[in-house]
């Protein structure tokens, strides 16, 4: 199965000739075309500074591209404004490479935030948060101030927040950079679980251990260009 012949309503993310450069002369993305199917688990690799984070920023529309078209779940991002953009973002979970945690809030509050904006019930939120913390071996940190956690613990909280609202599209940027092998395994379990329950998952990483033996597509970026694409292998 290749991306090109996937049906249109099976496509979650579609990028056509997307370029992004920063002044004065940093070319972060150079003419990237890519489509990711609904329900796919997709790896993005590349050297430091290759443009992985920038590509994820384009998909979640944190920044607009200089040129090119981006469609997410069938919406042209350039045309999306106000509440419609907000609604779309509620369905996208992002685990940022720099975490973007509110360091003066508790762990529970940080995870809950993505559910609160779509008006979930407080009881439901609490249950979900507890469940996620358990899966990530952080049950005892429920009420801890996030700024007091170790770096690896914060990384897991970031992931929990991204996953909490059961998004249909999950963008994960370097999820295991501060984690040991065992904890990495748990994180991957969580991501696979989300993927199995239907979410499209895009993982940007350099951690070979998590994609080396994977049967999923792997795209490699280098200095903003797509240099290779390992197609999915049917298991």
């Amino acid at each position, binding site marked *: 199965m290749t991306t090109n012949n996937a049906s249109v309503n099976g496509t979650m993310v579609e990028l056509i000739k997307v370029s992004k450069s920063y002044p004065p002369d940093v070319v972060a993305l150079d003419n990237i075309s890519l489509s990711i199917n609904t329900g796919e688990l997709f790896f993005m690799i590349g050297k430091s500074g290759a443009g992985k984070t920038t590509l994820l920023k384009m998909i979640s529309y944190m920044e607009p591209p200089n040129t090119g078209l981006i469609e997410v779940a069938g919406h042209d991002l350039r045309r999306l404004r106000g*509440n419609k953009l*907000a609604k*779309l*973002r*509620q369905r996208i979970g992002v685990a940022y490479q720099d975490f*973007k945690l509110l360091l003066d809030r508790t762990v529970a509050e940080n995870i809950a*935030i*993505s559910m*609160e904006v779509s008006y979930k019930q407080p009881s439901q939120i609490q249950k979900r948060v507890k469940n996620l913390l358990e899966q990530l071996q952080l049950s005892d940190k429920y009420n801890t101030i996030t700024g007091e956690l170790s770096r690896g613990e914060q990384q897991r909280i970031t992931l929990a927040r991204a996953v909490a609202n059961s998004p249909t599209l999950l963008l994960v940027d370097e999820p295991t950079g501060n984690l040991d092998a065992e904890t990495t395994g748990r994180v991957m379990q969580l991501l696979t679980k989300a993927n199995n329950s239907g979410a499209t998952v895009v993982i940007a990483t350099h951690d070979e251990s998590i994609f080396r033996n994977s049967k999923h597509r792997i795209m490699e970026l280098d200095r903003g260009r797509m240099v290779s694409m390992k197609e999915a292998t049917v298991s």
Partner: protein
Amino acid sequence: MRFWFSVVRQAGRNLRQTWPSQLMTLLTVSLSVLIFAFFSLVYTNMINSSEQLGDDLRLIIYLEDDPGPEMQEQLRRKITNFDRVEDIVFVSKEEAYKRFAEQLGGHRDVLDDIPKDFLPASVEVIPLKNLRSLNQIKLFSQYLSKLPGTLKVQYGQEWVERFYYFTRLLSIVVFLSGSLLILTTIFMVSYTIRLTIFGRQAELELLKLVGATNNYIRTPFLIEGVLQGLIGSSLGIFSLFLLYQWIKGHFSGPGLLELFSFTFFTPEVIIAIIFISIILTTAGSFTSIQKFLRI
């Protein structure tokens, strides 16, 4: 419903978590309202007081002869032609004599041999009781001195002149202080609000990114703005009221207060001040937050 539930909880949480800077803003608003209200109170009371002080101000036009009713009418018309006045009083020679006799009191018998018309008749013009400029009064007296049958125009003592200069200087002072203070107030309140919101930039950005609608982000801040305006201005006015009571208690007794009828704001004015504070703080919050809501 769910929206308001979320938003109120959010506002409550914000208040709990950022109360030091919230308190700072509150204090700023209170202090600003206090200063501002203090000045308007002083200003209004001062204008009242100077009106009372200016009671004595009258232009006296000494006439060659007692004016007949016709002449009186003519004078009256000429005077009112020039400017609106509070009152015009004609004093005949006889009345002038009587007043003088009263002033002499126990010594009035010395006047017995003097003809009753030795003092000139006069017209007393009492100008309107607003803070008119001295120039105008001078002009007025110049004009009056050219009326037919006028001997001399006199307007009170030097006192009046001095008092008017003084009042005018005071108006300038109060006006300038007022301007400076309004400037400071606006500056301080907007600065604190901006800083408060700036300190929560990360939170606002995150909310945008996880898909909060603009209203979801904005409303708690607006609620905060309303609360700050309400509580801050109430506190400010309350402090001013205490200050006012203190002054009243401290400087009561005959004289000062009965002379100047030092009064506090009416309830309407208080409500207006609170209302305006609320609008200002809310607008401040609104514009500050609006910058973060683009994209």
